[in-house]
């Protein structure tokens, strides 16, 4: 079990190293990269199967016992996020073999891409706050490199904005880590969860929580810290934009869910209303920003922001259903959003532009692409029978149950405005007559076409599967939501018998019954 738990970290590390060794040999790099991505998917799938059994898997690195060493902890939420990250790695690794692969690989796409996966998987599996900071940095430095891969002027400008904001964000994170250590004397997440409610100075603890919220919020692009995202994402090359859209902001969301269900859960009275306001503002500003745009990539970038709001409903309400809704929303959103960016790349390839004004007639010219666009687009807006419907349903229902009517109402309204944005792309790019004078894009080789369309078809298939066969996904999300609220189970799994040795006896008997 030990090896399996750290496999999602080891596999991208090995892949990144090997692809870096074969610098300048794109063919070999691509082979290794695809193999590494497939191995990651297999390993994370096996982990998910284990985690669905209901136990929290914890491994202490180097054999140093829990609160002292670095703990790698996989609970169901981590396993779900890892599996979906594995799926994205495969989809993007295949897509990146499409048009433009040679230029990308010469600039070092493969090592950077797998380093990014290393940072993402590390963030999802660690059980230690400082270690989370380190994984964030791994992810960040790889994403800096990926963003300016082509070194165009737009990318340099967008990249600088992204880099500057993230530098400040991570420093805030570091500051919060220091303050939290000063308050509690520990940085192990499970140990923090044990100690946090007993800290005398709860005001200072809440301030640290707010600082962490700023740091993770900047990463997750929540209101009002989202400006870097629409400034940077659309400049990246399409496979890069797709993996960014799928995973980068979600790591921030994951960190928020992890910290605020585990360490700051006892302070719901302070953070709950704050999260509600942030969630509503994020949803509304994102969708309104998208309405004003006329470039497919920028419309999609603003929709990432608006959807982040839905994922925060779970931490705002802290009920099992709300957290399950957030988890289901994460799964759905990662698949759908990555797919929309991949489709935007295909549209660009087929018709030479991202600007809606210059597009048109794709419904006649490329009916398959049109159908493939409709599936994730309608899913994003939350129409049945796609995945977005069920995740929105869970989020809104949890809002109504918790009597947070404003939150539920905003979620409904934003869903409608999302549909408006998606129909805008549909009308302009697919239905409108082609503006003429557009020369068709360069001819594809058969392999390029396959590399471009296979991931799109596969991800659309996942969206439809979640939509039509929701039961296992919803059940897993419900289980993850309940596990997130069961902090005692998490603490016991990580600290093990040590904690039992330390706590007064009454808890001993209760704890032994927890698996």
């Amino acid at each position, binding site marked *: 079990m030990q090896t399996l738990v750290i496999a999602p970290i080891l596999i991208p590390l090995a892949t990144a190293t090997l692809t870096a060794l074969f610098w300048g040999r794109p063919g070999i790099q691509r082979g290794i990269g695809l193999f590494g991505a497939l191995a990651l998917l297999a390993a994370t799938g096996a982990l998910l199967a284990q985690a669905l059994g209901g136990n929290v898997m914890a491994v202490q690195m180097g054999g140093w016992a829990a609160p002292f060493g670095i703990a790698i902890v996989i609970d169901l939420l981590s396993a779900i996020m890892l599996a979906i990250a594995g799926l994205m790695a495969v989809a993007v690794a295949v897509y990146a073999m499409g048009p433009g692969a040679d230029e990308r690989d010469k600039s070092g796409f493969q090592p950077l891409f797998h380093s990014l996966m290393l940072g993402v998987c590390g963030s999802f599996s660690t059980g230690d706050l*400082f270690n989370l900071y380190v994984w964030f940095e791994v992810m960040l430095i790889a994403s800096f490199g990926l963003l300016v891969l082509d070194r165009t002027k737009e990318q*340099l*400008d967008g990249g*600088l904005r992204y880099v*500057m904001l993230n530098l400040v964000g991570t*420093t805030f994170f570091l500051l919060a880590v220091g303050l939290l*250590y000063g308050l509690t004397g520990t940085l192990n997440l499970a140990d923090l969860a044990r100690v946090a409610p007993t800290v005398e100075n709860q005001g200072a603890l809440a301030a640290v929580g707010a600082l962490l919220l700023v740091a993770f919020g900047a990463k997750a692009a929540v209101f009002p810290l989202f400006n870097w995202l629409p400034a940077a994402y659309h400049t990246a090359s399409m496979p890069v934009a797709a993996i960014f859209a799928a995973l980068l902001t979600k790591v921030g969301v994951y960190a928020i869910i992890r910290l605020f269900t585990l360490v700051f859960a006892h302070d719901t009275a302070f953070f709950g209303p704050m999260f509600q306001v942030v969630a509503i503002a994020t949803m509304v500003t994102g969708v309104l920003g998208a309405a004003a745009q006329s470039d497919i990539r920028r419309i999609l970038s603003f929709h990432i922001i608006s959807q982040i709001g839905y994922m925060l409903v779970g931490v705002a309400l802290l009920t099992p259903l709300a957290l399950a809704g957030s988890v289901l929303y994460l799964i759905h959103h990662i698949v759908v959003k990555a797919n929309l960016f991949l489709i935007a790349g295909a549209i660009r390839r087929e018709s030479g532009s991202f600007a809606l004004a210059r597009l048109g007639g794709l419904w006649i010219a490329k009916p398959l692409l049109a159908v493939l666009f409709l599936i994730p687009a309608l899913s994003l807006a939350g129409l049945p029978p796609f995945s977005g419907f069920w995740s929105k349903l869970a989020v809104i229902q949890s809002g109504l149950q918790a009597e947070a009517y404003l939150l539920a109402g905003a979620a409904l309204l934003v869903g409608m405005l999302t549909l408006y944005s998606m129909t805008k792309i549909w009308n302009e790019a697919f239905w409108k007559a082609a503006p003429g004078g557009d020369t068709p894009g360069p001819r594809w080789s058969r392999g390029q076409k396959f590399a471009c369309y296979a991931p799109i078809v596969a991800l659309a298939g996942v969206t439809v599967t979640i939509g039509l066969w929701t039961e296992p996904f919803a059940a897993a999300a419900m289980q993850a939501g309940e596990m997130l609220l069961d902090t005692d189970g998490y603490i016991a799994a990580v600290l093990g018998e040590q904690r039992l040795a330390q706590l007064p006896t009454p808890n001993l008997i209760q704890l032994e019954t927890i698996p």
Partner: protein
Amino acid sequence: MPRILPPARPIRKPRSPTLEPFLALTIGLLVAASVYLFLARDLPRNLIGFVLLSTAANLGILVSGRIGSMAPPLVARGADAVVADAANPLPQALVLTAIVIGFGLAAFALTLIVKSHRQLGSVRPEDMALAEPQNTEQNRRAIEQKEAA
């Protein structure tokens, strides 16, 4: 040998009460200077602001581990715990990691600034609003022309 968890607040009272307020003031000063530099419309200044801010964060970690004891955290021969009243080694390990990471990030940001200075001829963000042009009719037409070319 079973290890025992440290109590919730394991850290001893500082021995030298004068140093902590001084360090706190230093951190405050560094943060103020970095905020001032972040407000400048000039990327190299912003970067120096980041360096100052990460220094402040590193000092913060060091202070939160409590300062005072000068005894090195070593385990005496035959003993199974560090010597009594030893200095706290963890914040130093954390700060060391953070310094390395901060240095790497600053180096990368500096290269990016140099590169954009060469390509765009400016280090002022408002001169390089290429990624996010104002959404005016004129700009849109310029972009479309560029794409058509």
